[in-house]
């Protein structure tokens, strides 16, 4: 029984994670990340 539960928790978390990813894509969050990642981040390289 314990093994069953411990096996389910990560699967449930993975499903929740994937669901959140889908919500993020729908709300345009992936676009925000793209806008940030597709240009040089001056702060990240120490020039900001």
């Amino acid at each position: 029984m314990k093994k069953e539960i411990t096996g389910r928790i990560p699967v449930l978390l993975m499903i929740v994670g994937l669901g959140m990813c889908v919500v993020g894509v729908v709300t345009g969050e992936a676009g925000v990340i793209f806008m940030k990642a597709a240009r040089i981040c001056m702060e990240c390289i120490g020039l900001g």
Partner: protein
Amino acid sequence: MVKHVRKIIQAGWGILTNAYVRGFIPGGPMLYQGPLKHFCVPGMNCYSCPGALGACPVGSLQAVLNERHRRFPFYVLGWMIFVGAAVGRFICGWLCLFGLLQELLYKIPVRKVRVADKVDRPLRYLKYIVLAVLVVGLPLLYRTRYGAGDPSFCKYVCPVGTLEGGVPHVLLNGTLRPALGWLFRWKMLLLVLCIAASVVIYRPFCRYICPLGAFYALFQRFSLVRIRVDSDACINCGACHRVCGMQVDPHVMPDSAECIRCGECMKACPVNALSFTAGGKGFCSRSTGSNIGSNTGNKKHLRRLDVFS
């Protein structure tokens, strides 16, 4: 064998995720700007690296949190939860280029420092503070007069960004050099300190600073892929503890938040008592090439010989 396989996978993954060769050509496009940049990679990998094909989850999380119009970071957080729940800190041990660099530096033959437990244990919590304050807190709460936030971890700390982004861009693009100031010098100082520490301490950045490692550590006890100890086979010889660079005692706490699941303990175990499991089912363990440890009779035999005392 596991040791070499892991190094090959670490290096291969690093090359694969930084495979935009044109970015490294002086006068070239400087950065990959294709559709893959919509996606986060599972480990620390600066998206400002000239070769980077994907986005760093830590940088992306700050980018969403410090937006002028606040939004919940569903996408990045969801990705991090998915990866953490699937494999936990396995990512740190197998798919992190900066982790590989630290491991290679640790191979330089000088006297090594095993951090005393009374120093090591409190310092381990530093990475959670870095995650809470620099990755989430400040980007979320602090606002400049223009309304945008600061990616505080990337800006003031991240040595990965300095190494993968800052140094190559400054070397490749002369136009950026006049902009170098105190921030770049500060970040270079942190990078040099990190490199120097890595020569004598095993993976100091991963152990004490890395916010992504801290996040994945929260899932170590729940993740699908874990390390299992066969308590019937274990002879409590301590070989796994002695070989662990992260100073974990796998036979006592196989789900320790500090374990990066590199598999060195499995290699060191003389009775094959440690194995990787997925959802409770074993899928990888070291083969001893003999029948040592195959049953409790061997366990008694090894105890009698006292070969590990």
